C-alpha cells in the first residue's frame, strides 16, 4: 500500500513538473494563435478532401476521424519526454533515483494528453458545424470522455515506445512523426478499417484509437448503446494491454541502458 502511495506521490510531482513545462512552452496567445490555428487547419484540411470528393458523408467521416486523431496525437507526443529528459540532463538522475522511471514518464506527459484532447474536441466542435456536421444532443456529451479515452490509450502506447527507444540518443522525432502518420493511415481515421485486408484490419484493432474512434463515430451517428459499449471495452482492453506491456518492459530497457551506458552517451 505504501508503495502505491509512493508512486502516486511521484506521479503527482511528475504531473506538476509537466504542467510547468507546458506553461513555459505556450502562452495563451501562442496557444490560441499558433497551436489552435494549426489544429483547426488540420481538421479543415482533411474535411476539405470530402468537399473535393463532393460527398457529405466523406467530409464528416474525415472531419471526425482527424479531430479525434488530434486528441491521440498528443499521446504520441509524450514520446518526446525521453528526449526532453536527456536534453535537460535529468535522465540519468531520474534513472538513478529509487522511484520507478516508468511512473515519472507515464505521469509527466499527461499534460500533453490533456492539451491534445481539449484541442481535438475544439477542432471537432468548431469545424464540425462549419461543414454541416450535426451533433445529437445530449449523446454528443459522450464524445468528451471517449476522446479522453482515445488520448490516454495512445499515451499508453507511446509510453511503451518510449521504453523501446529510451537508449537511442537520436531518432525520437523520427519515431514520433512516423508513428503519428502510420496511426493516421491504419486506425480508421481516413478510411474505415473494413477497407483493409483482413490481417490489416486485425492489426488495426490492436492499435490505440481504432476502437475508440469507432465508438465516437457510433455516438455521433446514433448507433445502439451496446455497439458503442463494445467498442469502448475494446479500446479499454487495448489501452490496458499497451500499458501493461510498458510497465513490464520499461524497467528492462532502463536496466540495459544502465549496464551499457547507452542512456546518456551512446547513439
Amino acid at each position: 500500500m505504501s508503495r502505491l502511495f509512493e508512486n502516486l506521490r511521484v506521479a503527482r510531482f511528475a504531473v506538476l513538473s509537466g504542467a510547468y513545462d507546458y506553461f513555459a512552452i505556450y502562452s495563451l496567445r501562442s496557444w490560441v494563435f499558433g497551436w489552435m490555428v494549426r489544429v483547426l487547419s488540420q481538421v479543415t484540411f482533411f474535411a476539405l478532401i470530402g468537399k473535393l470528393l463532393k460527398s457529405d458523408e466523406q467530409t464528416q467521416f474525415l472531419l471526425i476521424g482527424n479531430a479525434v486523431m488530434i486528441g491521440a496525437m498528443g499521446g504520441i507526443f509524450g514520446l518526446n519526454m525521453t528526449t526532453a529528459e536527456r536534453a535537460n540532463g535529468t535522465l540519468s538522475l531520474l534513472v538513478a533515483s529509487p522511484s520507478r522511471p516508468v511512473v515519472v514518464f507515464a505521469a509527466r506527459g499527461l499534460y500533453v494528453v490533456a492539451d491534445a484532447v481539449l484541442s481535438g474536441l475544439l477542432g471537432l466542435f468548431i469545424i464540425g458545424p462549419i461543414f454541416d456536421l450535426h451533433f445529437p444532443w445530449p449523446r454528443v456529451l459522450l464524445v468528451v470522455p471517449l476522446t479522453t479515452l482515445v488520448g490516454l490509450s495512445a499515451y499508453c502506447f507511446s509510453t511503451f515506445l518510449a521504453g523501446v527507444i529510451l537508449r537511442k540518443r537520436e531518432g525520437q522525432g523520427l519515431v514520433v512523426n512516423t508513428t503519428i502518420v502510420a496511426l493516421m493511415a491504419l486506425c480508421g481515421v481516413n478510411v474505415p478499417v473494413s477497407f483493409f485486408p483482413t490481417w490489416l484490419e486485425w492489426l488495426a484493432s490492436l492499435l490505440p484509437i481504432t476502437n475508440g474512434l469507432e465508438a465516437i463515430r457510433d455516438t455521433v451517428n446514433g448507433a445502439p448503446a451496446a455497439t458503442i459499449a463494445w467498442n469502448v471495452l475494446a479500446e479499454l482492453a487495448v489501452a490496458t494491454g499497451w500499458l501493461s506491456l510498458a510497465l513490464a518492459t520499461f524497467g528492462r530497457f532502463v536496466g540495459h541502458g544502465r549496464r551499457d551506458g547507452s542512456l546518456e552517451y551512446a547513439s
Partner: protein
Amino acid sequence: MRAFLAGARVQLSFIRAYPDALIPFFTAPLFTVIFMMIFRHSGRPDLTGYAAIAPVFIALWWLALFQSGWVIQTDRWSGTIELLVAAPSSFAANVLGRIVATTMLGVVSFGEAWLVARVIFGAAVTVHHWWTFLATVVVTLAAMAGTAVVMASLFVLTRSAATFSNSASYPFYVLGGILVPVSLLPSWLRPVSSIVFLSWSADLLRSTLRPGSIHHLAFRLGMVGVLGACGFVAGALLLSWILHRVRGNGELAHT
C-alpha cells in the same frame, strides 16, 4: 561559391548524422498511402495525381520549417556562428548553401510518393507536360529555398520560433491548396492563398498531370518565381539587418 558549397556539404553531413532530419522521407510515403486510400475508397482513381503531388509539398514544407529554418539558430546553439561570421567568406552564401542542399533533398519524396502509388496501389502517375513539369519543380524548389531563408532569419528574432514551426504546417497546406484546390476554399480566403506560392505551384503541377493544354502558363510560373524571389530578397535583407544588430549589441551567440 566555395562558401555556398561548403555550407551544402556541412548540411548534408548533418542530415546524415541526425535521423530526425529524415522524417519527411518516412512520412511522405505514408501520406501518399493515406491520400490514395481516401481516393480509392471513394471510387476516384482519377485523383491519383493529387495524392502523389501533395506529399511532396508536405515533405518540402517540413524541410523548410524544421531544417532550413533552423540553420542559423543551430549555429548559435553549437557556438559556431562567431567563427562563420568572422570568416572572410560570405556567411549568407554559407547559409544559402545549407538551405539549398536541404531543399534539393526534398525531390526524393517525388520518387517515394510515385513509387508508393505504383507499387502498393498499381496506379501510374503520368506527366503529360514534361517541360512544364520540370520548370515548375525547379522554380518551386527555388521559391521554397527563398521562403526558408525568411524563416531562418525570422527564427533568430523570435522566441516563438518552435511554436511557429509546430503550427505553420497545416495552415499553409490549406492556403497553398496542396491537395484540395484553392477554388474549394471560401471566397474570402482566396486572396490570402494567392500570395502563398504553394497555391500557384501545386495548381500548376497538377495541371501538368492532365492531358489538356495549360492556360496562362507563363503567368502562373512567373507568380511562383516572383513570390519565391520576394522571399529571397526579404530573407537576405533580414539576415543582413540581424547580423548588423547582433554584432552591434553583442548578442551574436546568445539566444
